[in-house]
Structure formats: structure tokens, C-alpha cells
């Protein structure tokens, strides 16, 4: 699959050296995922071994920055799992009616497709001014990139299909037609009022309480061992009766905090904090 195959044993041995020489801590990640992410990065930069990777990362800050960005996998597409967004579209008006203004946290914003899908939903139901949104990512360089709003052209086709399943709409209508080759931007960019924050879910405490927390396909990148304390942080972020949205193949069964939540929608993995 990659020019240089890395084994589980090699990657475990690599953790400490990487942290010692670059201060990048990857011990928190799921081993399979980090092995593939590093394998892909080494392929892209013609790096032929883990020792050479260490040298590459210490040559200049630009290499280290590009590596750190690579450690954060992109969101795959807009409106991934369209039913989730239909669910939000139907539930948000009720929540806003109950609470007046609601606060939403997007954890692990990455390339920003979930965040922008949420903003499009809010725009559709004319509730943007009733929702405060905080979007978090680990590194400022990644936040700068996602603010630019330039999306990989590979994401276009699945996004078109997803959007059609979300509201029978044409995703093409949302796209700026003056797209560059192999990439696209959206016509309306709604991120101006979003608060962006550098935040590392694996190492920092919760910084506030929110009515809805989006943490979709984020926990799956953490190791079994590391994910347990992170669930505590996740729980701390959510107000009583607030909602947690995870990836559709994620769950709380590995968490000691699952007793604090009830599942409102099994298919879309929507959980409500009950205490």
C-alpha cells in the first residue's frame, strides 16, 4: 500500500523518539490510523524510513508544520450521513424555541465540512443568529487553512450526492463556479461569526458548556486507552439535557460515562446528557 511499510511494533517504538526530538505526541492515536497517516505522509514526501522521517521533521519548521497538519485527517465530504443533518434541521427550531439562543461546539473541525454543513442547515432554517458556534482544532495552521475554505475536488461528487439526500437540493448551487482546478469554494461563506479556538481534546480540559457538541468521527482516531479519559472531557462540555453527536459507527460503550447519556437516535448516534 505504501512504499515503506510500517509495522505496529515499529510505530510503538517510534512514539518516544518522535516526542523527544520534535515534541509531537502521537501516543494518543489509534495505532492503525497513525500507521497509515504516517505511511501516506512518507510516501508523499519520498521519505524511506522512520529515522529519515525524524531527520526530515527536524530540518526546518515547515516540514514539522506539514506533518502536524497531516496528523489531522480531513473530513471526508459535506453532509456526510445526510440523515444526521436532516435530524438537526428538524430539532434545532424546537431547541431554539426552548432556550432562546443555543451554543454549539464543533470538536475536531479539521477541514471544516461538518462545520459548513451545520452553517448551511442553520441558514436553511433562518436560525444563524440564534446559535453561537465555537469550532476547535488542535493547530492554528489547520484553522488558518480551514478558514480559507478551499476544498479538495474529490469531495465534490460525494457532497453533491449527500446534499441531494439531505434536502433534494443541488449542491452545485452552493458552489462558487470560479473554482480552481481540483478544488472548489462555496459561494456563501458563513463562518464569519464562528469563534475558532486552538484546542487539544486529548490533553486539555473542557473550556465551557454547550447545548450541542459535534464530535463526529473524532473519537475513532484515539486509542482505546486514551479515549476513556477523553469521554470525561466530552461529558464536561455538554450541558444537562444537551446533545452529543458522534460518527454513525461510534458510540459510548467504551466509556465509563455512558450512564450519563441516553441514546436519542441510534442510527445517527445522537446522545442526550441526562445528569
Amino acid at each position, binding site marked *: 500500500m505504501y512504499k515503506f511499510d510500517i509495522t505496529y511494533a515499529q510505530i510503538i517504538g517510534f512514539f518516544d523518539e518522535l516526542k523527544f526530538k520534535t515534541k509531537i505526541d502521537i501516543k494518543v492515536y489509534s495505532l*492503525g490510523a497513525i500507521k497509515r497517516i504516517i505511511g501516506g505522509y512518507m510516501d508523499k514526501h519520498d521519505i524511506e524510513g522512520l529515522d529519515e522521517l525524524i531527520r526530515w521533521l527536524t530540518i526546518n519548521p515547515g516540514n514539522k508544520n506539514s506533518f502536524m497538519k497531516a496528523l489531522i*485527517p480531513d473530513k471526508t465530504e459535506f453532509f456526510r450521513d445526510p440523515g444526521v443533518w436532516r435530524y438537526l434541521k428538524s430539532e434545532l427550531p424546537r431547541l431554539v424555541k426552548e432556550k432562546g439562543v443555543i451554543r454549539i461546539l464543533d470538536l475536531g473541525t479539521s477541514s471544516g465540512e461538518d462545520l459548513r454543513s451545520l452553517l448551511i442547515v442553520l441558514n436553511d432554517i433562518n436560525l444563524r443568529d440564534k446559535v453561537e458556534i465555537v469550532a476547535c482544532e488542535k493547530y492554528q495552521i489547520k484553522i488558518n487553512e480551514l478558514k480559507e475554505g478551499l476544498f479538495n475536488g474529490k469531495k465534490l461528487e460525494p457532497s453533491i*450526492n449527500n446534499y441531494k439526500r439531505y434536502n433534494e437540493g443541488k449542491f452545485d448551487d452552493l458552489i462558487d463556479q470560479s473554482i480552481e482546478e481540483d478544488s472548489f469554494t462555496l459561494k456563501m461563506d458563513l463562518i464569519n461569526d464562528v469563534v475558532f479556538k486552538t484546542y487539544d481534546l486529548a490533553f486539555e480540559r473542557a473550556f465551557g458548556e454547550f447545548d450541542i457538541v459535534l464530535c463526529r*468521527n473524532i473519537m475513532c482516531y484515539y486509542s482505546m486507552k486514551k479515549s476513556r479519559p477523553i469521554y470525561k472531557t466530552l461529558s464536561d462540555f455538554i450541558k444537562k439535557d444537551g446533545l452529543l453527536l458522534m460518527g454513525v459507527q461510534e458510540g459510548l460503550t467504551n466509556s465509563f460515562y455512558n450512564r450519563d447519556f441516553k441514546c436519542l437516535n441510534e442510527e445517527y448516534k445522537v446522545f442526550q446528557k441526562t445528569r
Partner: protein
Amino acid sequence: MVVIGGSAGSFPLMGTIFSHLPKPYNYPIIVASHRLKHIRHGFVEALNLKSSLEIIEPLDKEKILPGKIYLAPANYHMSIEPGYYISLTTEDMVLSSRPSIDITLSSTGEIYGKGTLGILLTGANKDGAYGMKKINDFGGTTIVQDPATCMVDTMPKSAMAITEIDHVMNVDSIINTLKAINR
């Protein structure tokens, strides 16, 4: 541990294979198959109708148990982690596929080593070939569906081109092998 990959034409064969497996079955079975990523329902339900063993699309970090069949969910890569549990992730497609058969096969081979039986069925691209090579490298046993019996033979032929495959079999022989290892 049994791990099965397949693409074009493999769905009915998987149904046939699972319908012949005895219950209880002593090993877990991991399955990666190319599928439409926006269709989340129907695939596992249809296979379950034929199988006496329970077939599930696991959640991330689900523990692997004998006698269960774990089918890679749509739009997720599925790998096996040290500690014998399932890992599901959403990073880039591999050979235009998510789930990637290579990812599932190679990680299973690495974790279960010589205790791995890797089976690659009919399919239209070379996904799975690398995975079969890794199963071989880690000491496991490899079987490909006889290309002459495949709807599309690219997948087994690609595996045969890059690694030494232990057995080339038709589906009836694959079923008999899976029954035999359960004794």
C-alpha cells in the same frame, strides 16, 4: 481468524459461504467488501437472512469475538488493532475504496499472524492484493477464488501476481475449508 475480501460479484458468494457455516463457529470472521458508501442499510440485513452466524457492522473499538461475522461498514476503513478490537476510521480512500480491503486484510494478518486465513473473492480492481501479500508475509494462509469461476477476476489475479497464494479454490472448496478448520 478468518478474513474475507471481495468486490464485484462477491456479495452472493458471501451469502452462500455464510449460509453453509456451522453454528457455533470457533473463529471470528472479518469481511471487507466494496459497497456503495451512501447505502448504509440492506447489505448486512440481506446477509443475515442466509447466515446462522450473527453478522454485524461493528462500532469503532468493538471487541472481536469468535463465532461472529464483522462486516466493514459503508464509508469507513476497518482495521484490527493490537488488543483484538475493531478500529474504524474515515481517512482518504485507498484505490478509490472506503472500506479498503487492503487495510482490513493487512491489519488482520499483522495482528493474528500465522493464525490468519485470508480469502480473496471475485473483484474488479487490485484492492486486496497487498493485503494478501501482508497475510503471507506475517505467516498466514491465503486462498483466492479460482479466477476461472470469478465474475471479474482482476482481484484474485492481482494477488497472485504479487505474492505466492497457498490455495486457489472454487467457492465449494472454500466452504469445505471453512467447515474443516472448525472441527
